[in-house]
């Protein structure tokens, strides 16, 4: 029954303008990118990638710069588009008249909520796959360049967005309009790097009292580390190592906790 909700979420996303924009861009970006490059053997017999208007480059150099660009796009523009696409989809099934139809059926409420969450996650990760992974697979197939580090970096980036989605889903349970989870997501996008750098930014002059620092420290521990995850994905692409697992496992705990809270709120919600 959860599968039916996931399918419905995807079907709805194709029919919403913002979802369509996300899907359209995820197709256009790789099509443009791949149409601008030519892979051929150079005078020395080695493979080279030639981008229209640029010098030809060794595949490894071209791949790294392209992957860096795609990863940055996934961590920035894609997140912004994703927030706008995700929020209405996370709330549309709660609209008056539609909730009555869906919630009165014989599917437990938590399954309806999780089905929506997974459907939205499938939409986001699917479009990231089309936008960022398909060109990488093409380069790998044509040049043999390694994409392992890049795929892990993209996975960290998608995970970072899922932590944001978990935060938005809790807000959606109490909101009456998708604008609230959208605001919250944007506020948190700004707030997250500040929390990560709280000691340097706030503790010297602004939050000098001990209990205030204690509260902010706990906020940092509990809330997802989206900015650190974005940085970690970039670092992993370049170096192939993670400085620390802390942002990953603490954010994963947040996702589990936030989803459990959202399920509980959904169970208690009146329609």
């Amino acid at each position, binding site marked *: 029954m959860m599968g039916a909700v996931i399918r*419905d979420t995807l*079907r709805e996303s194709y029919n919403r303008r913002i979802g369509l924009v996300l899907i359209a861009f995820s197709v256009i970006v790789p099509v443009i990118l791949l149409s601008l490059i030519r892979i051929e053997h150079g005078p020395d017999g080695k493979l080279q990638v030639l981008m229209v208007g640029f010098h030809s480059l060794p595949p490894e150099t071209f791949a790294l710069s392209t992957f860096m660009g795609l990863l940055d796009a996934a961590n920035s523009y894609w997140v912004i588009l994703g927030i706008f696409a995700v929020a209405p989809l996370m709330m549309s099934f709660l609209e008056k*008249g539609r909730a*009555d*139809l869906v919630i009165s059926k*014989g*599917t437990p409420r938590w399954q309806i909520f999780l089905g929506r969450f997974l459907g939205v996650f499938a939409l986001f990760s699917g479009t990231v796959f089309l936008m960022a992974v398909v060109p990488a697979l093409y380069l790998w197939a044509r040049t043999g360049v390694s994409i392992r580090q890049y795929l892990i970096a993209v996975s960290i980036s998608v995970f970072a967005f899922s932590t944001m989605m978990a935060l938005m889903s809790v807000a959606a349970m109490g909101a009456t309009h998708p604008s609230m989870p959208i605001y919250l997501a944007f506020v948190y996008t700004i707030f997250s790097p500040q929390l990560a750098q709280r000691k340097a930014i706030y503790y010297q002059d602004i939050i000098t009292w001990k209990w205030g620092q204690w509260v902010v420290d706990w906020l940092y521990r509990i809330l997802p580390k989206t900015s650190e995850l974005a940085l970690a994905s970039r670092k992993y692409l370049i170096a192939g190592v993670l400085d620390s697992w802390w942002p990953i496992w603490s954010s994963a705990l947040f996702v589990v906790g936030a989803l459990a809270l959202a399920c509980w709120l959904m169970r*208690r919600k*009146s*329609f």
Partner: protein
Amino acid sequence: MSVTEASLAVETRNLEMTYRGLGQKSSQALAGVSLEIERGVIFGLLGQNGAGKTTLVKLLLSLIRPTSGTARVLGHNPFHARTRRRIGYLPEQMRLPEYMKAASFLRYMGELNGVDSAVMKKRIPALLDLVGLPGEKKPLSAYSKGMQQRLGLAQALLNEPELLFLDEPTEGLDPLGRKQVRDLLVTLKAGGKTIFLNSHLLSEIELVCDRVVILNRGAVVREGTPAEFAKHTGEYRIRLSDGGDAARAAVASVVPGARWEDKTVLLSPQNRAQLNALIDRLRAVPVEIETIEPVHSTLEEYFIQAVTGGSA
């Protein structure tokens, strides 16, 4: 005779619901509603706007939680998904997913109720046919109110429910559509289904319901069968061939306080003997009696009396 739980489709005990909003005055929607609805009947719920009808239906479907009291549907807590799979519901305000077509919408609703896909393959075309939308291929965004209502009815029937909640089922339908729905309700009842009908159309309730409850300000104020509600008022309407002075004087001499409308008189004799005496007196005038009929109260009159506090 006491009704056993197994034979009850719906049972509520002192069901109360108070809406409380942040910074808003609390408002009581239901004030201790206790109901017992037997299986296999068509039950009608009447009430003015804001009487608590939709709140009661939503509580029985676990869309909202009561402030206090208990509700059992088909002998179980309606909050259990397994109980709701045995229920069909047509909401008053429906928002159909505009991106779907009739068949895909019904398939989705069926999946949410755990209906087997092979069963749905057969049942969906049959249901669309039944509600008057055969082979409908238009997107739901192009549906008229009447078409939406028909589709809403089809989704409520898809899981072959034992209990059907219908909130204003004939809203937006033309007279023929209304008749089709009424006939369908009778057919469903004959098949052993219990139907909980919430409608403001009194004539509809009168025509199909076995039992009627009138809600006013969140409380049950009257309960009975349409036949009980439509009882004789004690008045008679007599149509005469002549409504002249002689006839009026004859009536006044036997039954004082009669009301005249041209050649028709409305009166309340104390007993049958007084009525017969009046007939004899009128014949003696002589005035020809064209018709005599006892006056029955309509459900509408009964309803108005119930909600305005008059005696029935």
